């Protein structure tokens, strides 16, 4: 069972690296912020799977990551986007 969790974490990291292509290609700045939101969602999944391997419960860290990504995107839209 642990082997399957480790395989799924490696698969999610590979998907994250593929998602960086959109950060390179994106014609506008908002495409890059969208890719950052994807970063946050994938990191929530990775932290949840990691805490089942280790046996301790780190779910509050996952909640903090989700809120940070949401607040970053809101700050960009309201303050920075011309």
């Amino acid at each position, binding site marked *: 069972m642990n082997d399957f969790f480790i395989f799924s974490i490696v*698969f999610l990291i590979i998907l994250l690296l593929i998602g960086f292509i959109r950060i390179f*290609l994106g014609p506008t700045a908002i495409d890059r912020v969208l890719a950052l939101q994807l970063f946050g969602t994938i990191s929530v999944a990775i932290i*949840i799977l990691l805490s089942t391997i280790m046996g301790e419960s780190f779910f509050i860290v996952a909640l903090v990551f*989700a809120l940070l990504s949401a607040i970053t995107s809101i700050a960009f839209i309201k303050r920075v986007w011309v």
Partner: protein
Amino acid sequence: MIEVVFISIGLFFFFAGIVGLIRFPDLYTRIHTITKADNIGLGFIIVGVIIHFGSLSIAIELLLIWIVVMFASASLGYMIANRALKDEQ
């Protein structure tokens, strides 16, 4: 055994979301993959982990995390699309 099935379905939905993010032609269509496909993948992974643990307090905690992520993605999708439309005019 059942959690392997659920986590595999979640990984498949994540993969579909990433492929859509790279190949879709417009900003408005890319918002669809971020707010729908990725969050459903996260939901399936969370269901698999809940079955693996089997305790009620952990189930409530994880479902609350999923609800927070869904609400944030939905409202952010609307804000982004609204702003992009206003910029075009």
